[in-house]
Structures are given as structure tokens and as C-alpha cells.
């Protein structure tokens, strides 16, 4: 059971990182990004390829994952800067599909739908599997902590203030003297870097990545995590990620004890229960578990 809990905490760490990355782009800047799994995949592939094919050391691979995703994020932001809301949603969604299909079809580079296996992990093989899990737990949650602190500082700074202004009204932000495009590009780049870094960490934990793993379902989970936690609040992103993993996993045990239904029905009950819980959560806490609060008070 311990091993299982640790593994799930590691997963929650990945989800938390993704939710944090998404929060910069979507929560703060208001740019809908339904393609987050694409950036996640880019980071994962970049690091996996560089470490397995070119034998780069792992930390460099992680960094490269973040950088590649960040570059893609910057380009993406430049292309879509004019688009708003739901129009942005479809383009980003498309981006993720493009990444997934490219990974499936460009076999020479990505090994196609076979995926890349045997991705190294820190001290994997030298230590026992439970120890490896513990090491990774440390790595991932350290990353979460660092990213959290950085992003929280960012969000409560004048920079974050401009991002939130852009989220609400671009024209006003522009008239306020803020180069809107440049802010958007930076926000998108930062968010994509976090997503890419999360992907890189994920690849080396799982030892295997394949296009199937970067399906829209993951995006849905992360978006749900962020919404459940509270869009805009960095703490919300982490709480939301933990909440979603807890939901995904606890429903296994619940559905197992329901008598008199077939396995498919159990599976259906489980997925249905996940969906229902999220609907109920939103219903009764529409602003999420941790609503965005302002920290800039006139009277301290």
C-alpha cells in the first residue's frame, strides 16, 4: 500500500506541475490552452530522445525538455495572439493533436506508436523499486515546490498584475502602456516551460512514453484539476491536482465494493463517479477549492 501511495503522490506531482503551468497561461493570462498535453509531450519526447539517443545526462535532458516546450510555447503565442477565448481553445487543442500525430507517424524520430522505452531514471536499477519511487517523489515535489514559489512570486508581482489585466481586458492593458503581445508571449513561454519540464520528469519516471499517453484525456484531467482547485490561485493548482488524483484512485476502491454489476458497469460507474464528483464540486464551489484572492491591499 505504501508503495502505491508513494507512486500516486509522484503522479500527483506531475499533475500539479502541469496545473501550475496551465495556471500561468490560462489562470493568470486568460489564454485558454487545451493543448497543454502537447507541451507536456514535447518535453517528454525531447528529454527521452536526448538521453536515450544522444546520451545526454538526465538533468540536461530535463532542462532541454523545458526549453523545447518553452520555444514551442513562444511560437504558439505569437501565432495565436490575436485569437481569443474559445477560438484559442480549438487551435491549442489542434496543436496537441498535431504533436500526438507527429509522434505517431514520424517513426524515424519518435519510434511511432511503439513509443520510446528504456528511458533512464535517476539511480534506477541501482536502488530497489521502492527506493527509486522515494527518490522520484523527492525530485518531483521539490520541482513542484520550486515552481510554486517562483510562480507565486510572479503572480503577486507587477508582472502578474499585468497578466491579470490582460486576462480581463486587453485594450485597457494596452492603453495602460503594457505591450500585450510581449506579456502574452512571456506568460505562454513560462507556462509551456513548466509543462515541458513536467513531461520530461514524467518520461524518466515512467521509463516509457508513447503517443497514446498524450491523449486529450490528460488535458481534461488537468483542466479539471485546475478548475477544481481554483483558477488563478497557484495553491489551487496543487490542491486541485491532489484532488483529481485522489478522485481517480479512490473511485477504484469504491467501485470495487458495489455488488451485482458487471466489470464494464463497474468501470462505467467509476468514470461516471469521477465526472459526477467534479460536477458536484463545481456546483457547490464554482470558484474552486481555493478562489483567487487579491493580495494587493490598500490598507495592509
Amino acid at each position: 500500500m505504501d508503495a502505491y501511495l508513494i507512486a500516486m503522490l509522484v503522479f500527483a506531482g506531475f499533475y500539479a506541475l502541469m496545473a501550475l503551468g496551465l495556471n500561468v497561461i490560462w489562470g493568470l493570462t486568460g489564454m485558454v490552452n487545451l493543448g497543454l498535453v502537447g507541451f507536456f509531450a514535447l518535453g517528454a519526447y525531447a528529454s527521452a530522445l536526448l538521453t536515450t539517443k544522444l546520451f545526454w545526462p538526465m538533468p540536461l535532458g530535463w532542462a532541454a525538455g523545458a526549453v523545447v516546450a518553452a520555444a514551442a510555447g513562444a511560437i504558439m503565442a505569437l501565432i495565436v495572439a490575436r485569437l481569443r477565448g474559445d477560438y484559442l481553445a480549438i487551435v491549442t487543442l489542434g496543436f496537441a493533436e498535431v504533436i500526438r500525430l507527429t509522434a505517431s507517424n514520424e517513426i524515424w524520430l519518435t519510434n511511432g506508436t511503439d513509443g520510446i522505452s528504456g528511458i533512464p531514471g535517476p539511480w534506477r536499477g541501482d536502488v530497489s523499486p521502492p527506493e527509486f519511487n522515494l527518490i522520484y517523489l523527492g525530485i518531483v515535489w521539490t520541482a513542484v515546490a520550486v515552481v510554486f514559489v517562483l510562480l507565486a512570486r510572479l503572480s503577486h508581482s507587477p508582472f502578474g498584475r499585468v497578466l491579470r489585466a490582460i486576462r480581463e481586458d486587453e485594450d485597457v492593458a494596452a492603453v495602460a502602456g503594457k505591450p500585450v503581445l510581449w506579456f502574452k508571449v512571456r506568460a505562454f513561454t513560462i507556462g509551456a516551460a513548466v509543462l515541458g519540464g513536467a513531461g520530461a520528469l514524467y518520461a524518466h519516471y515512467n521509463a516509457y512514453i508513447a503517443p497514446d499517453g498524450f491523449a486529450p484525456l490528460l488535458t481534461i484531467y488537468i483542466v479539471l484539476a485546475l478548475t477544481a482547485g481554483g483558477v488563478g490561485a497557484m495553491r489551487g493548482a496543487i490542491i486541485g491536482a491532489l484532488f483529481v488524483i485522489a478522485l481517480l484512485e479512490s473511485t477504484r476502491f469504491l467501485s470495487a465494493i458495489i455488488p451485482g454489476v458487471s466489470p464494464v458497469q463497474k468501470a462505467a460507474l467509476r468514470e461516471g463517479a469521477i465526472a459526477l464528483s467534479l460536477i458536484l464540486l463545481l456546483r457547490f464551489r464554482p470558484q474552486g477549492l481555493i478562489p483567487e484572492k487579491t493580495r494587493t491591499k490598500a490598507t495592509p
Partner: protein
Amino acid sequence: MIQDWRDLAQVLLNGVMAGSVLMLPAIGFNCIFAVLRYPNFAIAGFATTGAFAGWVANAVYGWPVGLALPLAFLVAGLVALLAEEAAFRPLRPAGPLTVAIASVAMTLLIENILRFSFGNDLRGYDLPILRDWRFDGIRINPQQLQNTGYAIVAAGGLFLLLGFSRLGRAMRAVADNPVLADIKGVDPNRIARVAVFIGGGLAGCGGMLVGIDTSIDPLTGFRVVLSVFAAAVVGGLGSIPGAALGAMVVGVGEEMAGLVLSPAYRTVTAFLAILLVLMFRPQGILGGRN
């Protein structure tokens, strides 16, 4: 791959056929968006619901398609109404994105309710499958042609309703400013319910047409939702004729994949087409405001 103009014409025609299947759900999506201003991804769930309702009527009780289709409309519309009232309405003040997220969860919920009741097996309608008609080497399937017809009629009807009737005006007024509409004597919730019912119903019909054209399972709606959303966006969110046009763009875009890249890149080609359209018209082809 392409030998003469006929092949090109064939690809275009295929695109129109594929597009016409997307048309009804896309119109349903835009109908809801037009009034409530949030993207209702649960349209996927409503489409699947309609597909199953129609299937039960047709394959289990032997109803003809002409009767099963209205039933699909009714059942999907009611489910949409239920989802709106129970889940989405209380969320509307929290903003369109929150509702959109909830609608994704709703799709998962509906998918699994159907899975619970029907299982994962593929099911086909009880219909003979007709051979294509051929004209000078170009093939058209009468069934698909008929589906296109249904879709166009529904689109036209709804367009007239929204554009020229008192109800349509009230719907657009609620979309603009529900509070003011209320002050002027419109019950925004009633209007919202009408829009949701029509939108959900159309999605249900669309789902049934997909089912007739292919086969159905709990994922039927989910498979087309991306393309449906794309069609709605390309055409212009909230625009009924836009949705019809967008469905054609996406349909043709996807069928063109074989010419441009490879069929394995179907989605990619479609998205490139979408990106191209949005570069020039960020609010979609027929979208009015941004």
C-alpha cells in the same frame, strides 16, 4: 494520387458528406452558444444519447428512421435540458469557462451512463445499406445524401427561427444581456431552456445520423466532438449558418488530408485549415463579434 479533375471533385464531395454529418451537432453547439455564451462540450454526450435513443427505437422496436429521428431529438433535448438545469445553470454566474469544464465532465458522465446501460459493443441500425450512385465516375451515397438533406433542412429552419422570429430575437437578446432582457419582460431561463433543448436535440439527431452512417457505441459523440467544435469555431461561434459552413470546411479539410499530407494526418490537415481561416478571420467565417 490524383489523376484527374474527377478525383478532386470526388474528394470535395466526400468532404461535403463528412461535413454534413458534423453539421447538426455543430449547429446545436452554436445554438446553445448563441444564447448562453459558453461552449457546451456535453454536445458529445447529447449526440451519443440521441444515437442510442434512435437505435433503441429503430433496432429494438423496429421504428423507421423517419420516426426514430424525432425521438432522438426529443430524448437528447430532454437530457440536455436536464444537464442544464441540474448542473450548468447554477454555474453560469461563475463564468463561461467553468461551465465549459463542467460540460466536459458531463460528457464523461453521460458516456458512462450509456456504457453502464448498453455496454461497449458496437451497434448498427436496422437499415439496408445502399450502394452508391455513380455519375461519370463520381460516387454519391443516397443515404449520405439524405443525411445531408436532413442537416441542411434543420440548419435552414433554425436560421430562419433565430433570425426572424420573436423567439429568435429574444434568444439573441438574452445572449447579449440576460439581465436587461429580464427587465424587458423576457424570462431568460425559459429562453435558455428552449435553446438548450433545440441544441441538444439537434446534437442528438446528428449523433443518430453518425450512427446511421457508421455504428454506435458510448464513444460515438466523443469521436466527433473535436471536429464539431472545430466546425463551430471556424464558422463563427454562435452563428447558425456559420456552423453549417464550418462543418463543410472541416469536412473537406479532413478529406483533403490524403492530397495534402497523408490520411494519417487527417486531423492535422483539418487543423491547418482551421488555423488558416482563423489567421484571416479571428472570429470565424461568419462570426460577428469577438
